[in-house]
């Protein structure tokens, strides 16, 4: 989230990926850093260690939303 906010502050189109378990922390950090509106895409938890095939499936699932958020930003 911090990385996403840092990039957004540079004026770059940004989407922060947050897994569902970490959504409260993501929202806290976004508020604490003064950018609660930073674009986010919520992913299922966990993402780490799910394997290449499942990761590819996930990427296909969220790709359209990511592109949409980047265009909105």
């Amino acid at each position, binding site marked *: 989230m911090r990385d996403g906010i840092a990039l957004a502050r540079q004026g770059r189109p940004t989407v922060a990926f947050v897994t569902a378990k*970490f959504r*409260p*922390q993501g929202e*806290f*950090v976004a508020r*604490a850093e003064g950018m609660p509106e930073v674009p986010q895409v919520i992913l299922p938890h966990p993402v780490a*260690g799910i394997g290449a095939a499942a990761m590819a499936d996930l990427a296909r699932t969220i790709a359209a939303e990511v592109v949409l958020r980047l265009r909105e930003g």
Partner: protein
Amino acid sequence: MSGAMLEAADEMAAQEALHALGCTDGLPVIVPTAGRVARMVLASGLDGDIELGTMGPGHGVATIEKVACAAVMAGCLPDHMPVVVAAVRAVCDPVFDLTEMQATTHCIAPLVVVNGSARLAGGYAGGFGLMGPGHRANLCTGRALRLAMMNIGSARPGESDMAIHGSPAKLSLCFAEDEENSPFPPLSTTFGHAPGAAAVTVLGVEGPHSVLFSGDAGDPAAAEALLDLIAAVIANRGSNNSYLGGHAAVAVVLNPEHAAVLARHDYDRARIQQALAARAVTPRGELARLNGKMLQGEGDPVPAVRDPANILLLVAGAPGLYSVVMPSWCAGPHGNVAVHAAVELDQACELPGAG
């Protein structure tokens, strides 16, 4: 008094309100009334609005008054306040990476080591059971730091403190070095403080991992065996220190008996640090097999601590079979290193009626 005041019908109602607001560490606290906080501010000898730094992840400003509030809640005596202030000042050092440390999923907690005259002024224990239970100065000071980290830094479990298991060490982890029974100069001297000067050293660590060693005073191999054992615990193969680049500090707390074994064999602090750093290594292939995705850094074997100076070596605890190693987290922009601060005892003033 700055900030919002909480009103309650009585102490019990105030206690429950503080729990309900998430302002406690889960244990009962002393209700920080305006009078109690003002008295603790007075004990610091500093103005209440003096700012010690910013505490992440919430970026709250740690004023003396807010820190005094944490000290009251923790059950501190006025004599503990200078050490609490120094500990808060230390963790606010940007090098400490408090924001990241508070947010991590690792079970890291700030270890506060008290050196010099601050030990005596506050009654800090460095012998039997120094990490608790039973030592008020140690436990209340460490707890005050935690409450400051929660209520000024806004670290709350599951929301902004994402430690997967948490740790008892996150409730309180503070003790004095046993300088009188150490064959080595005080830990604080390695950071430039004069022997006897009041100082704290703070390092983010896991809780203590024990090292069992029973040496024979006449055994010429005793020192080498002890060093091998400590090194094995530093470089344990489940620890972050083994995988994440080796740039973090670790704490090694020798009991006085083990320290004497090493001193008898002409080991001073620098030689011990060098010996431990050289031995706390693991074959790269073994780490790659066990946990390859986490393995960072170069070299084979892989050192758990690349810079010997990052092995914080101190003497504390009772004489006996056990010393302890406190591994660390090894992350954050500055890599999880130690910070230190002077304890300003000369600012403290005598409180009316404090006896």
